[in-house]
């Protein structure tokens, strides 16, 4: 009995590793090859989360549904993630069942798709994966796109209550800055981190202080990404973050400007490396406006309202 099970699992593993060379689906990432082979798989639901309007409509991965970050994945009135009720009804409308495997992808290097993965995680949804390399890689490989919107049969998924353990709030970040028992990763550009600029080029300035949270290390999100937009190999990622002192020995909080790019790094650290990570979605637009919190401003930029 035991032997046969061992034999069977060995066989499965061998077959799996053979397949993996052509197409792989890890626990949290799927390759473009794997996804193309599973376009007709009823148990797989593809979700596009692109931030630029019209991108999904002019050509998406066949069968994909469209989630709009600004309205579907956040609460459009109060600053918060989508409510449980709204998110559950969105998922059901998209034909997602309890046993569905969800594959997320999007433009701008999967930033907003990663935000989506984080929200799914908060509501306890299992089997959520990112398409490695996102829209960019799918397009670069000339894979098929469709403009048809498919209406899926409503699903029956039931969400759990929000798991606050995946989300850092302002008080958590201030405590981390003071006590140093939690590692902070600032994934913005070096110029934002040092305080030379308050917001990246082309983006409206939404904070009135420059700099970063004391104790935070700067690992720009792109450090985790290879040329083709895919995540770097796990061992390489482990090394990159370890060099900055992020080795999983302490709990981690990631942040950026509004919390979407840091979702990408959250995904790498939490899902690929298996560390204990929370995303701080308030990020610099909350922290840099908060009254009385400690700030490190290396560049010394003074906000003058100009």
């Amino acid at each position: 009995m035991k032997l046969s099970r061992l034999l069977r699992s060995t066989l499965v593993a061998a077959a799996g590793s053979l397949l993996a060379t052509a197409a792989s689906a890890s626990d949290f990432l799927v390759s473009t090859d794997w996804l193309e082979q599973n376009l007709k798989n009823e148990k797989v639901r593809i979700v596009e989360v692109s931030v630029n309007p019209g991108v999904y409509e002019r050509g998406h991965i066949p069968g994909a549904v469209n989630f709009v970050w600004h309205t579907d994945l956040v609460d459009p009135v109060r600053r918060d993630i989508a409510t449980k009720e709204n998110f559950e009804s969105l998922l059901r409308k998209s034909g997602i069942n309890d046993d569905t495997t969800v594959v997320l992808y999007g433009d701008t290097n999967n930033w907003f798709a990663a935000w989506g993965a984080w929200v799914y995680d908060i509501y306890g949804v299992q089997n959520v994966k990112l398409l490695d390399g996102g829209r960019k890689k799918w397009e670069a490989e000339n894979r098929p796109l469709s403009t048809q919107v498919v209406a899926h049969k409503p699903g029956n998924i039931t969400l759990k209550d929000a798991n606050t353990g995946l989300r850092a709030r302002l008080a958590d970040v201030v405590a981390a800055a003071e006590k140093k028992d939690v590692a902070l990763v600032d994934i913005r550009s070096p110029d934002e981190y040092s305080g030379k600029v308050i917001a990246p080029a082309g983006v409206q300035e939404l904070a009135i202080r420059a700099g970063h949270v004391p104790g935070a290390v700067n690992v720009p999100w792109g450090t985790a990404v290879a040329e083709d937009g895919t995540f770097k190999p796990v061992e390489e990622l482990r090394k990159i973050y370890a060099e900055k002192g992020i080795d999983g020995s302490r709990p981690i909080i990631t942040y950026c400007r509004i919390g979407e790019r840091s979702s990408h790094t959250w995904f790498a650290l939490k899902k690929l490396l298996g560390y204990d990570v929370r995303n701080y979605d308030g990020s610099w637009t909350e922290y840099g406006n908060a009254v009385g919190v400690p700030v490190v401003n290396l560049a010394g930029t003074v906000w003058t309202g100009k």
Partner: protein
Amino acid sequence: MNIATTASPRTGWNGLAAAAFAFAFFTCVLLLPESDALGRSLPVSMLLGGAFGLLLQRSRFCFFCISRDFFDNRDARGLVGIIAALAVGLIGYHAVFGAWLPVPAAGRLPPDAHIGPVSWVLAAGAFAFGIGMAVSGSCISAHLYRLGEGSLASPIALAGSAIGFVVGFLTWNELYLRAIQEAPTIWLPNLLGYGGSLAVQLGVLALLALFLMRYPWPREETAASPLHAIVFRRWPTYVGGILIGIVATVAYFRVGPLGVTAELGSLARTAANNAGLLPARLEGLDTLAGCATVVKETVLSRNGVFVIGLVLASFASALLAGDFKPRVPGVVECLRALFGGVLMGWGAMVALGCTVGVLLSGIMAGAASGWVFALFCILGAWVGWRLRQRCGKWLQK
């Protein structure tokens, strides 16, 4: 080209010049980067601009010329051509909408479509635009294709439009906070469904066409040969109109709705911004659907290459047909072009587009803003036309 040389010695040179412009056009298309920052194809945008320019020039799709034909002579052929464009585009847009947004539920709008807020500012902008096109002789898109016909007043009108845009930006914040911010954005499919929206709008267009077709059409000479009819003669406006409806649909499907003022507005905004003339923030402007006039960050934009394609193609088309007839404008004509241009620029800025971006692309999309623009623009054109008649001979020259 071979045939052109046999027509007459002069058309030989024109044919050669036309070929040079066609060569320049295709060279640009081949050299363009694959896509803009949003992933929309720049070569496709330029090709569509070329097709649009060719159609405007061949079928004399000039909103004011067409209106004046009717005001002066009750010649309704041109207006019927606009209706043809709108009808074909309406059907095409609704076919695309059905695929992209199967249920036009309340609160949902199709991406990028030019569905703008409806307020008195839109009406005022359209009215000013109408007067401006009557005073300057053409609307902005027609001034662009008339560059290819050697119209030397057109660059002045376009410069005037750029100035008008800056005036528009200066008045924007006040107008936005007084009216535009609270104005409803009305998309007919939200109210009537796709079938209802199509039925009502096609019905209105059919009634308008029936009314216009009560006026007899002037007899036209038959062309000497099919080639002559296609290359040298103007096409009937409705032929151009039907094809423009198709180009509009393809454009919306692949890159974005037709429009000719986004780049002009962007250039004006960037220049005025750099000169420190504009307020630091134009309230809400970059969030509204229409001919977006963003501050330029990249040299090549989707609308920029569209307009360049339009102009190059109109040169090629006009030269080949022998419609390239440069003439030095008089002082009064220059002043009319400049002043009319300013009015058009202001109107297109506050209305978020012109006869192409709001009237054509709006009505095709089922936007109430398109119909409001059309109504007030034609009213303005009529007032401008009366003004020109009243103000006597000195304004005519």
